[in-house]
């Protein structure tokens, strides 16, 4: 009896091994058939960052829908959960833990704000889970997510990536292009000192203006939750600068612009990533006409996959009046992020039985991503960062943007 059992076992093992071997990455497009790739996104749907989060979400959901409709990733379906961190650092950190350990997600996306990333990214790194930022543009996001002024620690975080163009590139490009057009002589910087994104942006402005002959007359700091920014705007306007730099996000840029125009100032506003969404342009309205920023994406760009992305987005999403909605930079970055993860998952050889191993394989595969996205041809740099074309855009006073310059990535 034992002999029979042993033989059946061996025969069974051989059959299983034979089946197994036909599912290696040798051309079978259903290697992952029946499996689920779990992704979790931490986004600011409410709070100060709530101006940007929903667009990222919409872009991501569109990508997930398209991929699943097209047969998934080698047969596996993607599930994406959207989790709101209410623009709070502590909530982002808590969600990171829940998604990694509770939900057992393969990889995470987000959080929306650089300020929240400080809480989430080091945690994801210590729990060895890949996290792909889709809108954080501050400094020391990648690769040194554990950097702090006290420790000056530049150890790269292996699991942290971003597809959102950093302010270190965007702001200087914006300043350079404006300086080239109009040769301003003086500027004033308004910065929300208790927000990482704004504060980082302010630092970059201060480091850059000298090169283009702009004299920074004043650096005016305020706290982001202040209801009334008019004293600060008054200080700025009274210095009579050619340019006012606004590195804040959320509702603050529009407030500053409206107040400055009310006080009779007619100069140029230059901003950071905080400008790059239709909501902010609409809030600023006519007061924001001509305000410039550097964006990682432009509606009318001619990259191969962009037109298709825009039309799919327009048919999927409608605004409050039922008209098709245009995507924005955040939607494009979210959409690209899902495609990046999907491509990496395809090549990673996931086992779906060893989560820790799979996460590491995904990480390694992400480093080699090379695909077309609405942001252009996409590859991560050696520091898991982004190099791409920069679009200098200006608000058109009606809730949209016009293109001013296109600057190729270097």
């Amino acid at each position, binding site marked *: 009896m034992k002999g029979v059992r042993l033989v059946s076992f061996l025969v069974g093992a051989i059959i299983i091994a034979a089946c197994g071997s036909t599912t290696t990455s040798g051309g079978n497009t259903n290697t992952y058939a029946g499996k689920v790739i779990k992704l979790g996104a931490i986004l600011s749907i409410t709070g100060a960052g709530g101006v940007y989060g929903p667009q990222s979400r919409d872009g991501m959901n569109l990508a997930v829908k398209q991929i699943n409709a097209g047969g998934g990733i080698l047969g596996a379906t993607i599930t994406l959960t959207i989790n709101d961190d209410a623009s709070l650092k*502590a909530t982002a950190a808590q969600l990171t833990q*829940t998604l990694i350990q509770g939900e057992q997600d393969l990889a995470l996306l987000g959080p929306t704000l650089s300020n929240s990333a*400080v809480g989430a990214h080091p945690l994801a790194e210590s729990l060895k889970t890949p996290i792909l930022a889709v809108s954080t543009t501050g400094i020391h996001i990648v690769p040194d997510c554990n950097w702090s002024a*006290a420790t000056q620690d530049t150890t790269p975080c292996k699991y942290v990536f971003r597809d959102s163009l950093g302010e270190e590139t965007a702001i200087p490009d914006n300043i350079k292009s404006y300086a080239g057009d109009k040769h301003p002589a003086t500027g004033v910087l308004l910065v929300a000192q208790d927000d990482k994104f704004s*504060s980082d942006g302010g630092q970059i402005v201060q480091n850059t203006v000298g090169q283009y002959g702009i004299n920074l007359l004043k650096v005016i700091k305020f706290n982001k939750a202040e209801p009334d920014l008019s004293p600060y705007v008054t200080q700025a306007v009274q210095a009579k600068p050619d340019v006012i730099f606004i590195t804040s996000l959320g509702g603050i840029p529009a407030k500053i612009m409206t107040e400055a125009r009310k006080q009779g100032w007619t100069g140029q506003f230059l901003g950071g990533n905080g400008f790059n969404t239709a909501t902010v342009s609409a809030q600023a309205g006519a007061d924001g006409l001509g305000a410039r920023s550097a964006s990682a994406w432009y509606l009318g760009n001619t990259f191969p996959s962009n037109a298709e992305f825009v039309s799919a987005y327009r048919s999927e999403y409608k605004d409050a009046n039922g008209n098709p909605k245009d995507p924005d930079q955040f939607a494009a970055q979210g959409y690209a992020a899902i495609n990046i993860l999907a491509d990496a998952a395809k090549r990673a050889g996931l086992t779906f039985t060893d989560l820790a191993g799979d996460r590491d394989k995904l990480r390694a595969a992400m480093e080699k991503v090379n695909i077309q996205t609405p942001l252009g041809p996409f590859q991560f740099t050696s520091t898991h960062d982004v190099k791409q074309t920069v679009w200098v855009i200006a608000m058109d006073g009606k809730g949209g943007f016009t293109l001013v310059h296109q600057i190729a990535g270097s």
Partner: protein
Amino acid sequence: MDFITQLLTDPIGFYNSHTLLIANIGINSILAASMFVVLYSGQLSLAAPGFMAIGAYTSVLMELYWRTPLALDIAAGTALASVVALLVGLSVLRLRGVFLAIATIGFIEALRLGVILNLPITGEGLGLQNPKADPLGGVNMVLVALVLVVFLLWRLTKGRLGHAWSAIRQDELAAMSQGIDVARYKMLAFILSAALAAFAGGLEAHLNFFVDPGDAQYGVTRAVQVLTFAVLGGSGNIFGPVVGALFLTTLPEILRFQGFNYRDIVSGVILIAVIIFRPQGIVGRGGLAIIRPRWWPRAQVSAPSPG
């Protein structure tokens, strides 16, 4: 509801995958204990977040700049908070009721907005980053600390200190006329509460990779949250606030379904319902209003426990 099913069917797995939640429950419980001490002695002090901030910043700064061991850092934070509590207490402890509450709110906001946000070393508005944080290992520390704190306070309330506090809470003038040194006992309660809060703050900072001076961490919002733990749980004995903290920290997680956005509304409704139908709190005055096992020690003097 997968939260509950996992808890019931796979407790070990649940523990391992919800370590940060469990740690938060622990920390909130220690904060609730801090609140318990002042409420038990009749003081409506909302100063806990301020002392938390002192504990958190001190321990993180020491760890970053002097690289001292964690135990020393947290102890230093607790000690510093106690000293500050002494000074603050000297100024405000003669105030009563809502006035004390407002004075302590003044203290925590002045500390947060006036001091922390203006001292370059605290990182001002951006807070501090704490790369040496240990979110996974820290849980066990928190749970052990919680057990010790609860035990300590349980013993204290059964002893002379507890009786003095109870007397003061019920009628300060009568207690004074009975020879109880009201000022001293109130100060003791205040300092102990501050030490517990600072301890919780230091532990919390060790679990997160950052210390942030926001309102939700060390401001009025936090103070109100901690007050709610204690009042909802019932501040008649130490277990009430802990139960309150457990309930209110877990509630948002239980309600975290995909697409269900009304968690806060449900929390608010539950808060109102509990406080109206059971204003003495979940645990109430005489202990859990459930069947006590025979070996549970009976207090000799106790108010009839509300059913």
